[in-house]
C-alpha cells in the first residue's frame, strides 16, 4: 500500500483499503476559517447535535479577512469566536495569536504525521509535508465532521513524483511544484494523491516541503504527501503534544503513474496569468513590468521564504514604481524575523511588513490590484481577478524571484542583481 492508503486504512479500522473504495474515516483535526466556518456553523446547528465530537480537535482560525477588514468580515469572524466560546474549543486563535492557518497548525504541532486532517480550505493539503493525509473539503463536510468526528472519502489513486539530480541556484520547493503543475496541468492529478519522493525531496527543508504539498490542489490533487523522515522528526518532535505515527509506502505499491524530473533542468519558474500551470522559466519574462510584489501566504510566508527574500533585497531599494508587501505567516515567524533583523532589512529596502493574514492572496485586503495593475506574488493562484480587479494580473514565483523583481521593477532573477 501507499502511505496514503495506510493512513486511511488505520482511520477506518481496516487492514487494507484500495483506490476507488468509499470509506468513512475518523478525522484527527478539523479546520475552518472566517470565510468557510460561518457556513459550517450554520449547517452544524441544523444537525441538532448538542456538542462537537471533540473540543480539542477543531481549529477555527480567522485569517482570511482578519484583522477584520470591514463590518461584514467582522461579523463573520465573530461567529467563529462565539461558536468557539459556546463549545469550549481550545483551538480558536484570536488576532494576535492567529497566523495563516496552514503555517500555524504545523508550527504549533497541532497537525502531525499519520493524521487524517480535513479543512474547509483547499490548501489543507499542505500538511501532507508532515506525512499526514490532509485534504480540503467544503463547509458542510466540516459541519458533519464537527458532529461525528468522521468524514467520507474515496480512497485516491496515487501518483509518484521522483525528483532527482540537484537543485540549481535560487530554485526552491516552489519551483519544483510550479514546474510539476506546468507539466501535468491544473487537472493533471485530479482526485489523486501526489506523493513527492526522490533524492532532492530527501534533502529538502520542511518549509519547502510544506510549499510543495500546499500546491497539490493546483494540479487538482486531493492531497500532497511526503513520507516522513529525519527532517520530519526534527520538525515535529519539539512541537507535538500528542503521539504521532510515521507511515511509509511499500516498494511494490501500484501507482497510477510515476513521473520523474531531473532537477538540474529546472530553472526558477514563474506561472503566468491566469492558471498556475501556465509556467515559464524566469529568464523568458524579463520584459514584464510590475506594480506590486507580495511575499507571504500559506505557500511562502515561512522563515526560509523571508530569509531568502531579505537576502535579495538587503542593501537595495524597491524600485520606485513598485510597492512590496511582506506577510510573515504567523506571529512566531514575525518575531523570529524581527530577531534575525529581516524586518529591518525589508523596511530599509522600503518594503512594508504586514500582520499575518491571507489578505491580498485572494483579493481580500491589504494590497488589492487596480484595473491594469500587475503583481508578482509568492502565493498559489493567479486566476482572473484573484488579487483584485478582473483586469489585473498575477504572476506566481518563489520568494527570491519576487524579491529580485521588486528591486528591478520587472520580472527578473536574483542573478541579474549579481547574486
Amino acid at each position, binding site marked *: 500500500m501507499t502511505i496514503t492508503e495506510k493512513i486511511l486504512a488505520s482511520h477506518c479500522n481496516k487492514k487494507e483499503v484500495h483506490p476507488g473504495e468509499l470509506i468513512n474515516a475518523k478525522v484527527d483535526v478539523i479546520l475552518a476559517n472566517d470565510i*468557510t466556518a460561518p*457556513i459550517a456553523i450554520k449547517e452544524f446547528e*441544523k*444537525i441538532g447535535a448538542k456538542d462537537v465530537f471533540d473540543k480539542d480537535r477543531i481549529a477555527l482560525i480567522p485569517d482570511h479577512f482578519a484583522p477584520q477588514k470591514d463590518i*461584514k468580515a467582522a461579523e463573520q469572524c465573530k461567529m467563529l469566536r462565539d461558536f468557539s466560546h459556546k463549545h469550549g474549543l481550545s483551538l480558536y486563535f484570536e488576532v494576535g495569536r492567529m497566523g495563516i492557518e496552514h503555517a500555524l497548525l504545523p508550527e504549533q504541532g497541532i497537525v502531525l504525521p499519520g493524521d487524517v486532517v480535513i479543512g*474547509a480550505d483547499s490548501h489543507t493539503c499542505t500538511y501532507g509535508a508532515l506525512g499526514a493525509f490532509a485534504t480540503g473539503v467544503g463547509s458542510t463536510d466540516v459541519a458533519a465532521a464537527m458532529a461525528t468526528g468522521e468524514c467520507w472519502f474515496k480512497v485516491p489513486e496515487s501518483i509518484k513524483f521522483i525528483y532527482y539530480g540537484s537543485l540549481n541556484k535560487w530554485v526552491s520547493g516552489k519551483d519544483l511544484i510550479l514546474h510539476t503543475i506546468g507539466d501535468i496541468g491544473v487537472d493533471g492529478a485530479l482526485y489523486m494523491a501526489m506523493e513527492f519522493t526522490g533524492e532532492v525531496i530527501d534533502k529538502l527543508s520542511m518549509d519547502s516541503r510544506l510549499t510543495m504539498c500546499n500546491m497539490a490542489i493546483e494540479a487538482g490533487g486531493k492531497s500532497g504527501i511526503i513520507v516522513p523522515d529525519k527532517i520530519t522528526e526534527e520538525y515535529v518532535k519539539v512541537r507535538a503534544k500528542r503521539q504521532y505515527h510515521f507511515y511509509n509506502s511499500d516498494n511494490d505499491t501500484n501507482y497510477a503513474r510515476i513521473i520523474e524530473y531531473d532537477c538540474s533542468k529546472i530553472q526558477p519558474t514563474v506561472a503566468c496569468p491566469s*492558471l498556475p500551470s501556465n509556467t515559464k522559466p524566469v529568464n523568458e519574462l524579463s520584459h514584464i513590468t510590475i506594480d506590486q510584489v507580495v511575499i507571504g501566504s500559506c505557500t511562502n510566508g515561512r522563515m526560509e521564504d523571508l530569509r531568502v527574500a531579505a537576502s535579495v533585497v538587503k542593501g537595495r531599494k524597491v524600485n520606485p514604481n513598485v510597492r512590496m508587501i511582506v506577510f510573515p505567516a504567523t506571529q512566531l515567524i514575525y518575531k523570529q524575523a524581527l530577531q534575525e533583523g529581516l524586518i529591518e532589512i525589508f523596511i530599509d529596502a522600503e518594503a512594508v511588513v504586514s500582520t499575518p493574514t491571507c489578505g491580498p492572496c485572494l483579493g*481580500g485586503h491589504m494590497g488589492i490590484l487596480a484595473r491594469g495593475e500587475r503583481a508578482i506574488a509568492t502565493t498559489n493562484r493567479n486566476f482572473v481577478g*484573484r488579487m483584485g480587479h478582473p483586469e489585473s494580473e498575477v504572476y506566481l514565483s518563489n520568494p527570491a524571484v519576487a524579491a529580485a523583481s521588486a528591486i528591478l521593477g520587472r520580472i527578473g532573477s536574483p542573478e541579474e542583481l549579481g547574486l
Partner: protein
Amino acid sequence: MKLQGKVWKFGDDIDTDAIIPARYLNTSNPEELARHVMEDADKEFPNKVKRGDILVAGKNFGCGSSREHAPIAIKAAGIQAVIAKSFARIFYRNAFNIGLPIFESEDASQGISEGDIVEIDADTGRIDNLTTKKTFTAKPIPPFMQELIASGGLIEWTKKKLEKV
C-alpha cells in the same frame, strides 16, 4: 426527476474565483452571492441568467478554492444543474452536499451549444439536447452519492446517522 432549461456555455478550468470572486465572500447570504455569480467569467451573466437555466462547461469545472459559496451562488441564481466534462474534486463534493445537481459527460459538454434547450433525466443521467435532437449519457452517480441525494444532502444524512447511534 427531469430538469429542462436553456444553456449557458463556459470553457475549461472555470475556477471558483470566477464563479464567485473572493471580494464578495464577506457574506454567505445565498441571494447576495447569486447577484455576483460567474461575474469574473462574464460580467453581464448575473443580469442575463434566468431561473431554470442550465450551465454547460468544459473540464475541471470549479477548480481552486473549497468555498461552498460557489455552488451556493449557482443554486441561488436559480441555475438548475451544471453539466461539465469533469469537475474539480471539492466542488463535486460540495455540489452533492448542498443539493446542486451536477452531471459529468464529455460528449454532452462538447455537443451542447449556448442557447440550446436541454432536458436531463436526473435519475438515469440521460441528457437530451432538444434543440439538436442529440442524446448523451452522464457518468453514473456513485451509490453513496445517490444515498446522500436520497437523504436530502449531507446534513440530513448525518442527522439520520446520529439518530441511529
